[in-house]
């Protein structure tokens, strides 16, 4: 829509970027140092934490049989399907709640009630209803992601600056135009916040769901490794979950930058 002119960086910006890289490096090195320390075989904690070298070996072994990719693939698939369905339902639900009072008044008590219940508490119900297959996990993720997204997006829809709606009215906009051209764009930052929260709670819930029983998936892999006391595999699984989470976060950030470049941001 808009061509942002690329300008050369000012010396201060160059310096800031350089410092960011330096601090990130320090951050990673410190984390590795902590890891090396706690996994030192002489320490008690060495029994819990496998050292980096062993974790890497475990990863290489699993990668050779490509079993690791099966686990990652299974988990990511569940998260994406569960989250995707939740997103598709949460967005219109939030707008309906913001726009139609009767709908809001009927649905809001349900949401208030359900949001206090950890999604994992539904697992027995879901297993009886949908078996132990893929759909059970997807349903649990759906519940978790849907709730956080509706709450966050609805918060945005009802907080659209009333002056903007007034301005649109006096510029001849009808209800339809106000909805499409004002309410929706004004809510996009909140939709993105919702997506971010929804993705992270999907991942959290999924792993917990897999720990309670699955054929494959990162949670299942961790559970199984723990049974045989393979702490290197456990730690590898945990790290992979973190990396997957970071990747999701990165994707959301890219979407955010593309969709809300117009937003006023605080100068830090």
């Amino acid at each position, binding site marked *: 829509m*808009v061509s942002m002119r690329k300008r050369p960086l000012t010396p201060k910006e160059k310096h800031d970027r350089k410092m960011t890289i330096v601090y990130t490096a320090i951050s990673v090195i410190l984390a590795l140092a902590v890891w090396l320390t706690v996994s030192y075989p002489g320490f008690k904690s060495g029994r819990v934490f496998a050292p980096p070298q062993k974790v890497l070996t475990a990863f290489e072994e699993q990668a050779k049989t490509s079993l690791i990719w099966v686990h990652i693939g299974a988990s990511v698939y569940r998260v994406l399907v569960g989250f995707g369905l939740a997103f598709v339902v949460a967005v219109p639900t939030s707008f309906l709640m913001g726009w139609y009072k009767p709908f809001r008044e009927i649905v809001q008590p349900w949401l208030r009630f359900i949001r206090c219940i950890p999604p994992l508490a539904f697992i027995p119900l879901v297993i009886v209803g949908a078996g132990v297959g893929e759909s059970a996990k997807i349903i649990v993720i759906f519940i978790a992601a849907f709730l956080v997204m509706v709450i966050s997006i609805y918060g945005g829809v009802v907080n659209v600056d009333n002056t*903007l709606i007034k*301005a649109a009215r*006096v*510029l*001849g906009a009808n209800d339809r135009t106000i909805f499409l*051209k004002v309410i929706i764009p004004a809510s996009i930052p909140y939709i993105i916040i919702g997506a971010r929260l929804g993705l992270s709670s999907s991942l959290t819930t999924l792993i917990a769901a897999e720990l309670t029983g699955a054929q494959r998936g990162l949670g299942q892999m961790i559970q199984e490794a723990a049974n045989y006391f393979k702490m290197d595999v456990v730690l590898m699984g945990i790290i992979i979950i973190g990396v997957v989470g970071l990747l999701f976060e990165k994707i959301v950030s890219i979407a955010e930058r593309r969709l809300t470049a*117009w*937003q006023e941001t605080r100068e830090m």
Partner: protein
Amino acid sequence: MAGNSRDVKVDIKGVRRIFTGGEIDVVALNGIDLQLYDNEFVCVVGPSGCGKSTLLNILAGLDKQTDGEITVDGGRIDGPSPDRGVVFQQYALFPWLTVRKNVEFGLRNQGLPERQVRETADKYINMVQLQDFANSYPKVLSGGMKQRVAIARAYAMNPSLLLLDEPFGALDAQTRAQLQADLLQTWEAEEKTCFFITHDVEEAVLLAQRVVIMSARPGRIKRIVDIDIPHPRTQETRLSQEFSVLKNTIWAEVYHEYLTQRK
């Protein structure tokens, strides 16, 4: 020169506005009678909470009076109309649209052909001298520039009545002086009836042909002062004897109302 014709543009008769639903009913406007003439520039001053903005919202079609009658060009007000433009104090630009798209917003709602939309937008973006920022988002603009966009957006609809709700209230003194000069110039060039609300008595005297002084709540019209200073007016107009006398008279009345309200 603008503002000579004495045809009645807006006729406000016995307008009252009572806000119910709170703990007590609030009488915001209590019997307003006022006529605005074609192409006239009227400023309204009065203490906070005197109902100035309520009156503007009713004229804009964003609110409705409890009693009384208002006609614009002989017709009753029924909701907002592109013929009655509004400039808000908080600019109210759509932050996700560029300057150009903001100015085009209302034109598109009217379903004008694309070429006309673009040409009209260009004309008014040039009028407020923001052509270099046409493709920028509002976030990169200063407060004064944002308000110029809002003015261009209102003007682009070519309304015959322009309602301005303390448009320069949030700006620093220099920017405000600049925008006042620009607005005067535009008003002198393009004939429109302007209904301008302000806290700033000096601003009112500089811009208006008539200044309406409102009393403290419940809002009534206390006095209307004719400003006979000839147009074109500039910032130098402020230095004249005539200007200070009018300013001091009006200021004293407004201050008196402010004290009344505090009691």
